[in-house]
């Protein structure tokens, strides 16, 4: 066995926090987090490239989880960018809002996870629609950069307000009863909730892809992306479509937030560091293709997980390094068209 830093990669719970400063923060160890009760004793141990299978598959699972969030968020960014020509810097804050809404619903209204999975995206998506009507709609004719600056400002406001009321430490969110526990797969222990997150986000991503690429509604959307004036001439209400698209993209971010709530603590800055990584994912994938965003998101999550096993020092930076390499070799991104 390779010598590692204490606690690194030995248990499934060890390094799943995507925040770079996590190791400097006092980790709130709530009783709700203990979804894995020392599974190591139960499963067979074997080694791959000198790495215990537990550590390897555990990190790969964490990679897939992070990849699910990268995919959901970059998908939302790509959808919004396609219609609005705006990079939504508020995306991270909206992801955080999704997690907080789920938390409020549970704490204050007793509404459980399953309902929150539907209600939170709708509520947050609705705030997105308000933002679009109030601010963004006036910026389409201007330089792209103003959209970026405006959404950046909004992200600061939202994060500031939440930090002011909820501090910087995380709030725990309980895993729903139906998904407690896990499966012993022999070579690793698979917590049910994590399996659910990977499967469900993949399903949401594929459904989004299907709607945009294979249905009439998606055809309208793609047509409006190419030539809004012409689509309007056919009697389709493009401004309303733009508003709803923004709402939908924001709802996707909030959905990711709800799913993240039981895994990571619900905290005001959970979105702001994630969004920068997601930007890098978007640059790597290129925003031209929906499937590209999904594949890149999951793929980079896996690569990040592998890096945590084999070269933990680089796990924070590996995605940025890949971004630089991709830009040198293929400036338009892996799936992108030249912009």
């Amino acid at each position, binding site marked *: 066995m390779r010598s590692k830093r204490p606690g690194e990669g030995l248990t499934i719970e060890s390094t799943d926090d995507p925040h770079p400063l996590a190791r400097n923060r006092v980790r709130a160890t709530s009783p709700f987090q203990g979804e894995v009760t020392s599974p190591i004793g139960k499963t067979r141990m074997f080694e791959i490239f000198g790495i215990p299978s537990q550590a390897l598959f555990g990190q790969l699972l964490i990679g897939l989880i992070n990849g699910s969030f990268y995919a959901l968020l970059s998908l939302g960014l790509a959808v919004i960018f396609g219609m609005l020509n705006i990079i939504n810097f508020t995306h991270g804050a909206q992801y955080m809002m999704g997690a907080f809404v789920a938390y409020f619903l549970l704490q204050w209204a007793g509404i459980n996870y399953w309902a929150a999975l539907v209600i939170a995206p709708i509520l947050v998506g609705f705030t997105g629609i308000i933002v679009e009507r109030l601010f963004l709609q006036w910026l389409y004719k201007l330089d792209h950069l103003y959209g970026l600056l405006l959404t950046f400002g909004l992200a600061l406001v939202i994060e500031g307000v939440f930090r002011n009321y909820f501090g910087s430490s995380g709030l725990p969110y309980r895993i729903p009863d139906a998904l407690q526990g896990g499966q012993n797969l022999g070579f690793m222990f698979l917590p049910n909730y994590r399996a659910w997150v990977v499967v469900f986000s993949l399903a949401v991503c594929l459904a989004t892809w299907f709607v945009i690429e294979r249905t009439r509604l998606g055809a309208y959307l793609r047509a409006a992306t190419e030539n809004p004036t012409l689509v309007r001439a056919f009697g389709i209400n493009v401004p309303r479509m733009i508003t709803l698209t923004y709402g939908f993209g924001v709802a996707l971010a909030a959905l990711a937030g709800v799913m993240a709530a039981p895994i990571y603590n619900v905290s005001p800055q959970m979105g*702001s560091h994630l969004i920068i990584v997601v930007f890098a994912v978007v640059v790597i994938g290129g925003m031209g293709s929906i499937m590209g965003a999904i594949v890149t998101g999951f793929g980079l999550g896996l690569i990040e997980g592998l890096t945590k096993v084999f070269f933990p020092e680089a796990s924070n930076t590996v995605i940025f390094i890949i971004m630089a390499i991709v830009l040198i070799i293929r400036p338009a991104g892996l799936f992108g068209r030249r912009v």
Partner: protein
Amino acid sequence: MTIASPAAVAAKPTRSWSETIAFAVMVGFFLIAPLFIYPLFLMKALCFALFACAFNLLIGYVGLLSFGHALYFGWASYVCAYTAKAWGLTPELAILLGAATAAVLGLVAGSIAIRRQGIYFAMITLALAQMMFFFAVQAPFTGGEDGIQAVPRGYLFGVIDLVNPMNMYFTVLAIFLGCFLLIYRIIHSPFGEVLKAIRENETRAISLGYKTDRYKLVAFVLSATFAGVAGATKAIVFQLASLTDVDWPMSGEVVLMTLVGGLGTVFGPVIGAFIVISMQNYLAQIGQWVLVVQGTVFVICVMLFRRGIIGEIAHALRIKL
């Protein structure tokens, strides 16, 4: 600049009285300001004013939004602080080394980032800056969370004692004014005219035979270098280099300063930096609300006055500032 211009650009030098007067007012203000304003505050504001001017060189005159300028600011301050403390370099050498580091980083990051335009450029610079932030967290010489503390201010040129606040202030002022004039000169040179042409219509500039990528890269390196000078100077003034200066909110702050003052104006970034720094100073006691106030100012600027303060004044009076 040494880049050959294919077509003679020789734009007639538009020397405007308004700029000369504004410059005189600015210099006059800075000369007497330490009499009635706390010098440390002034020095901080001057460092950030230079930082914002460097940033403005890129967004205001080439139209490139770099969302990662904290990278050059912060790393220059680390290198400056380290060389001044560990190697015992004199402050001017430490600042020069810091600036050189920023230039090299700017060259590397710039040559990657200029491969994409517009929004992608902003995202790439942000991501690269975040990558270097993680290096700063992990690298042994930066001191991680503690940063590099108790950096000696030392003796300028081995003679002038910078522990004396007035000596320090006028050193910072000299650095600021020197760089300010240099940036002014760059903006108004034939090279600067090509930059503005790229900002207005890059395709046209290419068709006129300009290698726009090379111009953009040079502008990027220049901007990074000046940002580095600002960061290094700040490290000497505050005797500290920390993670705050390399983290992404710092990149956001410099955007805010430039936006408030006025993108593409000569004096805007200076005013913007003073406003944002005073805002932080006076609002320090309200804690997290600073973030909310900053965000609100962003939103107001983008929605209501995109020209910024100086830009609006210049527009109203129909003068150049």
